[in-house]
Structure formats: structure tokens, C-alpha cells
């Protein structure tokens, strides 16, 4: 803090002092945003290509199943993440008129976060994953995220503590909600039992795990991609437009309703699954109620621009903001709509969801980020934007890119969803799964084109900013921290209101006397004369606590009863734990990211029952640590695939899917036939499962490796009989994976057979 006060005595006029804002950290975050944005989107284009041209799966570490989480994590946590840090660091300092509390913490935050991203970029292709979407990173990295987040939180709240501006502006409310909620979500969803440095099992199974994951996943969307971006909007939009915010009252109403309601909506990701229907219903109605709270932000954004539309036409910053906010409005209408069960029955598992996320991520997050960057860069680097023309070119290219992308994905999603459920006049399914894949390939090509155009637009932006920075180097010798003259705050020791009633109370107390009731009432009345909320805005701590309570209510009510109430997960007698070999096979399935393309959740709908078999029951998943229901059916559901084909079919299919399924887009996995099956940790894995309550005997745990070997020998022998070309694969990974495939859905078949 000392450097902030430096020189104030000599230069500042009376009653004023100097603040030196830390813009260096902001510059770093802006550059990181650009860098990771390009990386994340490039990976996006690569995986889009893999889905039309499987040859683009370049070997073991770069298959679709492993790269898709790289793409999602890079875009959410690296691109959007760094963007919101830039926004928070820049705007918070100015909104509270104080430098960030600790330069050291700022540094640790920045470099810690980049380290985490680098670790993610390495471990995910290596197949180290917890599988849960946007929470894939294995436990040491998840732990590092928690630490860095706490560093960020300390730095932020400490800055609030030393603030000079008494009242917190709405942008800060959204930042507070972000920091608190992300911490809660991240910790609860990452509770795992490690069985190695980069391998762990979720402590929740099946239905429970699914509920917690989507409470997390949905609110990662809320508190990483929505609330901080609303904060960003509330600062940068009025700054850029030079207009007052449309309605303070609306800010209050939509902030609290949004924060309170969002947290309940997670189960809408689990409609028609084996999650009990009451939970699903709750997720649906809260999603519908979320519509207007979301739109409150859009209204306050767009209405703030009333009377400034001529400026919007000229200024690329405002253009980006307007389109970004419009996409926000579209996505937050579409979201509640998709959470209505009957709509979801069509959209779920299809590319409709992909269209929805991309209109939000590319439209809202992307455009808001670039609007901010175009506004910030000239200020941070003390120069003019190198080329407004290029910024406009970026804008139009990005628009074309998004439109191609989402139109293609809407039509792919709806087409495939309708094909899945189509019956012919005789009551038979009209299409094989492969036919529904082939049908949407043209749309997948359009996506590749749309995504590439968006990527190119971002490269244009990066070039423009690179040139702007070079121009700044020519114009400025260095970039010292900007200094602002601000009034020395007096509100802390001077909670006296103008008429002195508070002082009277204080004074009477001080003198040992009793303040009479009138004095107190006057004092209260005086304090709330600008509304209770205004009072709250002056109390950062109370504000934070209330926000925390608002998000905890929905969290507790949606999670605790499901986990603790009896009868939520009816037991199924015949469901048994996996054998050690099958468990190893399941871990290969996880590492290869098969769950990224395949669901294991047959929904209670005629077409699914017809196509895959009996619909999934909650009791089937009691040993599923973590759950593997999936969220996208690029390939068919596998919950009942056991026994559907013989071993040989699976072996052929893994070696070269094109042989068994001409035209398929599933990658080939030839290395499964070469890589040794590692049984060194099998025993530890069973022990961990045992701790979690899976009924393995101590003997099984101890002899896990031998048991696995014995079963592998048997499966390998059966396979060798079916096809001599596949003989002698005893200790290869493919045997474990086949054993796992053949187990899927078998237990419940037995149950039905018994009856």
C-alpha cells in the first residue's frame, strides 16, 4: 500500500490523495485472453474437423475424446477466465478508488492461473481426467485452482476493505457473487478419492454424482460466463457510451433474483434421466423463472444506449457490446425454453445444445470480451487503436462465423433429434443410428467453415492489437501506473449523517448515558433514507454474506434431500460391482474420452427403448464413481451394449471402425492393441471403491491384479477363437475395454430374466 500514498503529501491538494492503479496486471490478463482465445478456438476448429473427417484424429493423444475437454476448458477458463480477470482488475480499482491490495497476490493470481491452464493443456491429452464436464482436471490441478481462486478472493476482498468509495457499484455485486459461488461449486464438485497422482474417483456415485455435477456445470455457466460478464457490462458499457445506467432499481431486482434463482436450475441438464422427476421439475421451473432476471441485464444494457445509437454505429466497441448483449438475450430466452421437459426431450443429447452454448459463448462472451479489449487496449497502452477498419472487419467476420455455426448446429440438432424418434407406418424405427449421423454431415462441414471464420476474425483482432502495442512502444518509453487524484475518504470515521442524529446516539453512549428510543429510531431512519439497499452497498461484508446465503439456499435444497432422503435411489438386487478387469476397462473408457461421444442413459421414451433397450434406472448406477451418463450422443447410447455384439466385432471396431460401420465418425484406437494393461494400481483402485462403499471383499481387493489377469486371459481366449488374427492379446488394453463393453447393461437384464 505504501507506494499508493507515495508523494501524496507533496503533490496532492488538501483533502485529496493520489492512487496509482495497477494496470500492468490488467495488460497481462488481456494478452493472456487473446493468446488462449486463439488456442482454444483453434482446438475447437480441429475437433469440428475430426467430426467430419476422422483421419484428423492424430494419434493417441489428439483424438476427439481427449481434445474436446481441452477446447471447452480453454475457452471457458482460459479465454473467458482471463477476460473476466482483466475486467475485474481494471474496473474494481477504479470503482473503489484503490489499487489492488497486493501486487504480490496479483502476480500469484496471474501466473498461477496460467500455470493451471498449461497443466490442463498437458494432462487432458494424456487422458488424465475426472470426466465431469468443466471439472475434468485431476485433483492436484483442481487443488491448485482452489488455491489460486482463494488468492484472487483475498486480493479482491482486501481491496474492498481498503476502498475509498463507500458504496459498491452494481458491477462489484456481480464480481462478489462470482468469487463466492465459484469457490463453493468448485470445492463441492471436486471431492474425490485419489488413487494416484493423476487418477481419482468422485466420492459421489450415479444419480448423486450427476446431480452435483450439473448443479456445478450449470452454475459454472452462471458464475463464470454470466455474472462476471454482467459486471463487465455494467462498467465498460456506460464508460464507452458515456451514458448513465438505465435503471438502478432494475439493477437491484435483477441482481438478487438472478443470483438466487440461477443456482436451482442445474437439474434441467438431467431431464428424462434416472434423476428423480421431482428434482428435474424443480430445475425446470426455476429455469423458466430465470428468464426475466436474465433479461434484466439485457434491458439495462440495451436501454442504457437509448439516445446513443448514432455512436453505436460508429464505435466498434459499442457495436461489439450491442451484439453481445443481444446474443445474451437470445441465449437466456432459449435456455429456459430448452429446459421445458418436452422441448428438452428433443434437444437433449443433440447438437441443439451445441448451438445454444455457442450462441452464448461466441456471441455473448466473445463479443463482450472483444468490446472490452478494444476499449481497454488503447487506454492500457496509451495510444490509439491501430486500425478501426480492422476492428470492423473483425466484427463482421465474427458475425458471419457465428451465424454459420449456429444455423448449422440448430439444423443438425433438430434433424437428428427428429430422426432418432421417427417411426415408420409399421411402428418400427425409421432410421439406424448411422443414418442419423450421415444425414447431418453436411451441417458439420458448415460448422467447420463457420468456426474457422470466427477463428480468423480473432486472428485479425490479435494482429490489430499487436500493431497497436508496437505503435505504443514507438510512442511511449514505458508505461507507468496511471495516477488518479481522489478525495481522501472520510466516511469510515464519519458515519455521522448531516443532521447528526447518529452522532447523538454515539455521543450519548460514549458518555455512559442511555440513548433514548427516539434517537435510535431517528438514527435508523436517517441511515436508510436512501433505501435499505443503499445501506447494504456500504457494507461489503454483509453484502457478501447475503449473497452467499442467496446461493446456498438453492444449493442445499436441491442437493441435500436427494443425497439423504430414503427411497430416492431404489436398490436393484442384481446390480453388482464391476470386476477388477472391467473397472480397468472403464478407466480406459474414461481416459480415451469415450463418454464425450457416447451416453449411457436410456431415457424413458419409446424410441430409445426400441433402439437401446429398457430405460435406465437410478439403482443401476450405485457403483458408478463417477457417473458416465454423458451429455452428447455423437455415437449411440452404450448403457445396454453388453452382449449386443461379440468380442470380435468390438475388436474390429476399435481397430478400424470404418470396417464394421462404413461412414462412421468414431476414431480408430489401434494403440489399444499395443499398449500393455497396467494392473499395478488395480488393488488400490478397488480399495478406494471399498472405502466409498462398494462391496468388494478384502480378498478381492488384495488379489485384484490376479483376478483381472485371469478374466483377461479368458476374454482374450474367446476373442482368439472368434478370430485368430486377434489371438494373444491377453495383457493388452483392448481386452479390458471389451470386458467393460460386454458388462454394460447386463446386470439389469439378469434382473428381468429372473422375474
Amino acid at each position, binding site marked *: 500500500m505504501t507506494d499508493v500514498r507515495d508523494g501524496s503529501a507533496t503533490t496532492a491538494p488538501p483533502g485529496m490523495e493520489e492512487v496509482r492503479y495497477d494496470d500492468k496486471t490488467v495488460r497481462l490478463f488481456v494478452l493472456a485472453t487473446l493468446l488462449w482465445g486463439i488456442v482454444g478456438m483453434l482446438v475447437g476448429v480441429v475437433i469440428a474437423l475430426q467430426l467430419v473427417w476422422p483421419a484428423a484424429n492424430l494419434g493417441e493423444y489428439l483424438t476427439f475424446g481427449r481434445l474436446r475437454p481441452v477446447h471447452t476448458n480453454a475457452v471457458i477458463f482460459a479465454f473467458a477466465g482471463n477476460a473476466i480477470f482483466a475486467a475485474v482488475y481494471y474496473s474494481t480499482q*477504479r*470503482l473503489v*478508488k484503490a489499487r489492488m491490495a497486493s501486487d504480490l497476490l496479483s502476480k500469484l493470481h496471474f501466473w498461477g492461473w496460467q500455470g493451471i491452464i498449461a497443466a490442463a493443456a498437458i494432462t487432458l491429452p494424456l487422458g488424465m481426467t475426472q470426466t465431469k464436464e468443466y471439472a475434468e482436471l485431476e485433483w492436484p490441478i483442481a487443488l491448485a485452482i482452489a488455491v489460486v481462486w482463494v488468492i484472487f478472493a483475498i486480493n479482491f476482498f482486501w481491496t474492498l476493505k481498503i476502498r475509498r*468509495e463507500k*458504496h459498491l*457499484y452494481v458491477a462489484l455485486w456481480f464480481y462478489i457473487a462470482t468469487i463466492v459461488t465459484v469457490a463453493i461449486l468448485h470445492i463441492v464438485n471436486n471431492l474425490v478419492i485419489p488413487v494416484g497422482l493423476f487418477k481419482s474417483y468422485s466420492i459421489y456415485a450415479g444419480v448423486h454424482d450427476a446431480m452435483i455435477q450439473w448443479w456445478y456445470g450449470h452454475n459454472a455457466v452462471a458464475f463464470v460466463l454470466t455474472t462476471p460478464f454482467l459486471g463487465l457490462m455494467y*462498467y465498460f458499457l*456506460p*464508460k464507452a457510451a*458515456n*451514458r*448513465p*445506467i*438505465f*435503471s*438502478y*432499481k*432494475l*439493477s437491484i*431486482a435483477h441482481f438478487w*433474483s438472478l443470483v438466487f434463482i440461477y443456482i436451482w436450475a442445474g437439474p434441467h441438464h438431467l431431464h*428424462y434421466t434416472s434423476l428423480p422427476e421431482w428434482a428435474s*421439475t424443480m430445475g*425446470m*421451473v426455476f429455469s*423458466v*423463472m430465470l*428468464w*426475466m*432476471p436474465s*433479461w*434484466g441485464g439485457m*434491458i439495462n444494457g440495451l*436501454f442504457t444506449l437509448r439516445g446513443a445509437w448514432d455512436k453505436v454505429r460508429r464505435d466498434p466497441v459499442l457495436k461489439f457490446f450491442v451484439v453481445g448483449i443481444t446474443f445474451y438475450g437470445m441465449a437466456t430466452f432459449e435456455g429456459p425454453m430448452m429446459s421445458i421437459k418436452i422441448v428438452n426431450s428433443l434437444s437433449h443429447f443433440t447438437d441443439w445444445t451445441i448451438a445454444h452454448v455457442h450462441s452464448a459463448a461466441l456471441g455473448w462472451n466473445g463479443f463482450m470480451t472483444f468490446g472490452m479489449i478494444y476499449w481497454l487496449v488503447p487506454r492500457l497502452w496509451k495510444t490509439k487503436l491501430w486500425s478501426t477498419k480492422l476492428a470492423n472487419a473483425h466484427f463482421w467476420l465474427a458475425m458471419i462465423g457465428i451465424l454459420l455455426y449456429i444455423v448449422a448446429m440448430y439444423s443438425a440438432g433438430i434433424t437428428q433429434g427428429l430422426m432418432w424418434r421417427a*417411426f*415408420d*407406418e*409399421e*411402428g*418400427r*424405427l425409421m432410421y*439406424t443410428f448411422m*443414418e442419423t449421423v450421415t444425414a447431418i454431415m453436411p451441417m458439420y462441414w458448415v460448422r467447420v467453415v463457420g468456426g474457422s471464420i470466427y477463428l480468423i476474425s480473432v486472428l485479425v483482432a490479435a494482429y490489430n492489437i499487436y500493431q497497436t502495442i508496437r505503435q505504443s512502444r514507438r510512442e511511449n518509453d514505458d508505461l507507468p501506473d496511471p495516477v488518479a487524484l481522489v478525495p481522501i475518504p472520510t466516511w469510515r470515521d464519519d458515519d455521522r449523517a448531516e443532521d447528526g442524529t447518529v452522532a447523538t446516539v454515539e455521543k450519548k453512549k460514549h458518555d455512559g448515558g442511555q440513548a433514548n428510543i427516539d434517537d435510535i429510531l431517528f438514527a435508523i431512519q436517517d441511515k436508510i433514507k*436512501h433505501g435499505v439497499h443503499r445501506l447494504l452497498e456500504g457494507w461489503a461484508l454483509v453484502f457478501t454474506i447475503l449473497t452467499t446465503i442467496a446461493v446456498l439456499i438453492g444449493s442445499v435444497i436441491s442437493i441435500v434431500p436427494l443425497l439423504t432422503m430414503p427411497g430416492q435411489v431404489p436398490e436393484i438386487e442384481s446390480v453388482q460391482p464391476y470386476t477388477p478387469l472391467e473397472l480397468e476397462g472403464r478407466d480406459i473408457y474414461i481416459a480415451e474420452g469415450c463418454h464425450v461421444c457416447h451416453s449411457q442413459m436410456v431415457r*424413458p*421414451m*419409446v*424410441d430409445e*427403448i*426400441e433402439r437401446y433397450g429398457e430405460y435406465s434406472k437410478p439403482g443401476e448406477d450405485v457403483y458408478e464413481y463417477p457417473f458416465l451418463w454423458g451429455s452428447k450422443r455423437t455415437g449411440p447410447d452404450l448403457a445396454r451394449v453388453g452382449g*449386443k*455384439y*461379440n468380442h*470380435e*466385432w468390438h475388436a*474390429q471396431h476399435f481397430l478400424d471402425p470404418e*470396417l*464394421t*460401420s*462404413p461412414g462412421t465418425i468414431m476414431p480408430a484406437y489401434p494403440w489399444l492393441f499395443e499398449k500393455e494393461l497396467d494392473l499395478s494400481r488395480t488393488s488400490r483402485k478397488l480399495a478406494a471403491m471399498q472405502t466409498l462403499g462398494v462391496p468388494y471383499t478384502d480378498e478381492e481387493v488384495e488379489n485384484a491384479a490376479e483376478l483381472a489377469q485371469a478374466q483377461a486371459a479368458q476374454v482374450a481366449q474367446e476373442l482368439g477363437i472368434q478370430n485368430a488374427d486377434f489371438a494373444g492379446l491377453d495383457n493388452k488394453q483392448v481386452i479390458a475395454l471389451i470386458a467393460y463393453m460386454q458388462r454394460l447393461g447386463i446386470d439389469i437384464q439378469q434382473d428381468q430374466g429372473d422375474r
Partner: protein
Amino acid sequence: MSESKPKDQGSPYPDVVIQGHDYDGIQEYDNPMPAWWLWIFYATIAWSVFYVAALGMGWIDDYEAQLERGELYVAELRASGGEAMAVEVTEDYLAGLLEDQDQLSSGERTYATRCASCHGMEGEGGIGPAFKADLRESERTTIELYEVVRDGIPAGGMPAHEPMMSAQDMAAVTAFIETL
């Protein structure tokens, strides 16, 4: 900050700047929330309460009821459509198909989507046995082949196709196999 002249009193949004709200130059208007915004918000809340009640009362189908309706729909299709298009597949019927180009090309399409993955694109065999005349080992008659398509050979890994295909389609693909 920009001009903040209050508008005429008639406007729902008078645009009065709130005194004392100034954050790094950002000001706020004291405008009311848009009425339509509030009303839609209330409506979604009312609708939610209604939905939960209606689901509880059984006025709206829950998953189980939806599934029953779906099953009924398919059962009806099968009863009506199945009857109208039912063909009795006999030796003679199959022999007739061997002469029918339309049926054979329909069989060829079915073969490509459903059979080729195990029996080879040209019937050269793979996971399943070959059909090509010169490679063929089985001595089944056409009607016996049809029965295999229909009922499968569970022990050998050949699935039954009756649940997935119409009798006519199964007959057509059987005929096509015979031409290989």
C-alpha cells in the same frame, strides 16, 4: 457525464440521475423497472406454481404417463400399419422378388446400412459368413435364409431383425443376398 436533463413527466422513464451515485464517472438513472418485465417475471412464477401443482394432480403427464402414451402410439401403428402392409413371406414370394428390380435395389440399400458391417460390403464375409456365390459355405434355402434374418442366430452373434425391420424389407434384403 452526458446531459441528464429530466424528460417530461409523462414518460414512464423520466431519466432522473440519482444524486450521489457516481462511480468512476458512471451515473445511474432512477427509472422504474419496466412494467412488462415485472409482469412477465410474476407470470413465470405463477406458471411454475401451476405446473408443479398440475403435475402433482396428474393434469400434466409425468415421465411414466408420457411413456405409456408413446407406447400406445407405437402399438397402434403396429396394429394398423402392420396389418395393411403385412406380406406373407413364402418360397414363391421370395422367388418373385428375385425378378423384381425395385425390390432388389431396396434390398441392396438395406444391406449396406444393416448387413455390410459384418458380412462385407460385397458379401465377402467378415465377422459374419460370406454370401458371395463362390465363397458361400451355407446351404440354406432362400426361405431358411429369410428365417435367419428374421430370428437371428443368437449363439453365433447374429441378431434378430424382426424388431427392427418390416417383413417386406427383410424379404427384399434376403432376395438381394441371393443375387450376390
